[in-house]
Each structure stands twice: as C-alpha cells, then as structure tokens.
C-alpha cells in the first residue's frame, strides 16, 4: 500500500505492507534512526514522535494509519544547525545517562511545552509519565525541561 506522509517538513512516500509499524517505517524505510524502539509493548515511550503535533507511541501505530499526516521526529528539533532549547537543556542539566529514552522524552516535552509554556514541576512529571527512563534519571530530566521552558520564555525559540 502506498503511504504518503511528511516527516520534519519533508515529504516521503513508500510502498509498505499494512502490518508495518510506523516506527519501523521511520527507522528502516526512511532511515531516521533517532527514534528508538524500547519495550515494543506500548509501555516505555522511547518511540514517541509527534503525529499532527500530538505525541504518540510509534510502535503502536501502523504506518498506513499515518497516511497524509505530518510527523515530527527528534531529527526535526535542530533548526539551521542550532539545537532546540530542550536539547540544550538536556545537555546542560545532564538530562540523559544512557540516552535511550531521550528521543521520546524530547518529543513528549516538546509538545508539552507548546501547550504549557510555564509548567510546574508536577505538570512536567505528569506529562512525562508515559516515558520511562531505565537509568531513573528523572530529576535531571525534569530540570532539563525547566531549563528549556525558561530559555523559550526568554525568546530562545
């Protein structure tokens, strides 16, 4: 089946089997390997991408369901060689250890900050409750998101 979609503003099309999972299309057909596969059972959120602006687990969607949709993956955060404030925040606050959950954390936080530019710590913890960090580095992940929120409110992005 022919699927046409856009990823990070770029149009793509591919002929895929209906059973192909969206995350497999992103990683193996489009070769965008920033999106990770963690648990593969809808628990961990490492595969989180934005579908028409909403964060979703791309291991729990078929590629054919993304027909005509605008996707955004972690590769879309950097603009013109400049890291997004969230990426800066994760670096500055040590928001990653092994880094496996990071693409999902970034995408969930990105959508969250668009909706809630001035979040409380509780709001952030609530927002990322569907993203698991096996290093349990949540304290610094929360700090990283706060760092980004502050940078954005000062006109960073």
């Amino acid at each position: 089946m022919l699927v046409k979609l856009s990823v990070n503003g770029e149009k793509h099309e591919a002929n895929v089997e209906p059973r192909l999972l969206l995350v497999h299309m992103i990683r193996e057909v489009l070769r965008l390997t920033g999106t990770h596969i963690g648990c593969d059972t809808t628990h961990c959120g490492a595969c989180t991408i934005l579908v028409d602006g909403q964060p979703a687990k791309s291991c729990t969607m078929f590629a054919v369901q993304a027909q005509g949709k605008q996707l955004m993956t972690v590769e879309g955060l950097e603009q013109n060689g400049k890291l997004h404030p969230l990426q800066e925040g994760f670096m500055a606050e040590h928001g990653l250890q092994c880094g496996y959950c990071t693409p999902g954390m970034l995408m969930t936080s990105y959508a969250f900050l668009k909706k809630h530019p001035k979040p409380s710590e509780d709001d952030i913890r609530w927002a990322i409750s569907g993203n698991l960090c096996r290093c349990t580095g949540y304290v610094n992940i929360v700090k990283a998101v706060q760092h980004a929120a502050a940078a954005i409110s000062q006109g960073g992005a």
Partner: protein
Amino acid sequence: MIPAAFEYHTPSTIGEATALLAKLGDDAKVLSGGQSLIPLMKLRLASPAHLVDINGIPGLSGIREADGFLRIGALTRESELEESEVVRSRYPLLHDTSKVIADPLVRNLATVGGNLAHGDPANDHPATMLALGAEIVAVGPKGERRVPIASFFTGPFATSLRPDEILVEIRIPSPPARSGGAYLKLERKVGDFATAAVAAQVTIGANGACEHVGIGLTNVGLTPIKATKAEAALKGKAPDEAAIKRAAELAAEASEPSADLRGSVEYKKDLVRVLTARALRKAVERAGSRR
C-alpha cells in the same frame, strides 16, 4: 514484534464500514485508537485477517451535552475527555477516570468507544459507565440500536455488539442537581491496569437521602461489575458513615477477583471495600458542592 499480515480497509462512511463488517464477519476487527488491539496483534494474541479503520469516518468524534445526555462520540480520544471543560465541571467521575487511563501518550490515541467495545474488565471506562448508567449507541446494516450499559458486557473481552455493528456513541444521562462522583484506582505504576478500581456516582435528594447510587468495579472479575446490592443498600438512605461502610462491604462481596502479580484474592476484595468507601465519601462531598 511483527503482527500477522492483514488487509487494511478505510471506509469513509458508517454504511460502508458496517457493510464491510457484514461481509467479512469474524475475520474482521474494527480499528479505532488501536492502543489495545495493536499490542494484542503484536503479541499474536489477535490475528484478524482484516482491519476496518474507522478513523476516516466523519462525525464519530466529539463531546456535547444535548437532549438530557452527555453525548460522547466513539472516536473521542481520552485526552479530549481529560481536557473537556464540560466533563471537568459536570462529570467529575468521568474526569477522574480520564486522568488515570494508561498514560498521557496512549491517551492521545486511545478512544472512549474502543475502551468499552474491547470488553476488557481491566479497562477503566466500563466501571465508570456502569456507575453513570450510560447507554451505548450501536449502528449496524439494519440501523441503530441503544444498549443499556448494564447489559453490554457479556463475558471476558465480549460485548453484546454484533459482529457487523459499530459502537458510534456513548450517552450519559445529565446528572440532576446535587450529584457527584469519583473514580479511585490503585495501580502499581502509571500505565498499569488497576489492581482494583471503583467508580461511584450519587445524587442527594432534598431530604438528604441518596436518590441515585451507581457503583462500578474495575478488574475484579471476568467482566466489569455493577455492584447492585451495594447500590440498593445505600439508595434511600442518608450517606452517613454507617451506610457507606455497609455499601462498601457489599461491593467487596460482589467482587470476584483472581490472584495475580498485583495481589491475592483477599487483598483485592479488601481493596474494593476501602476504595468503595473512599469513592462514595468523595462523591457525596462533590454532590454537596454542586447545586
């Protein structure tokens, strides 16, 4: 994990969708949010030969109050429910529930209709809808019918929906003044199914007695459970501590949990007792603040 191959259908009207289901019979499954079905397919616990994706059918989404009902389109995402002002202000039981289903990412795709049509006794909406006295609107090739929620769940993962029918809407009677509700769920972590959960809805009459009582139980039996004896025990009585305690004991007796990693039978039954009492107290308190 790779699901078994299937043929993918994208009907653009309800008529097309039900005609497809009538033709394909048991080989077909309806795909709405996919947050239960796709994991099952990946584990090969389900291998439908055909998926009928109803997401392209207009008019199946949305939340509105009309004709004395809160009408929720089957394709309404859980996150829409969570953010709905009318749900937050007038249906606290439903608002509570929407915040504890799976996790925020799953709720962006998962649908209210799917949560019910899946027939999983561990899902959260069934108990809520039992407590609220909702009705299900189903459409098949022969037209529309309404099913009271109390006769909707017929077994584990089984509902009274016919193979050629699609759940299109959920209707919840608008609560009278002095009504309130609450959903209390104990889960080991965000995203887990309930160890046990209780939905309670009450309406307090002018004389201070309970005019209406609805109590639904999650994940403590082969189907979602409506605790009818507990409801009857509280109805017509003032919701004092003794009456709430008695209803909570009857709710625990109505539960039929099985032992698993989440706890023993005894533990879960006692959890139902404790959660029922707490949910009823909260429902009564909220009813008092809502005139």
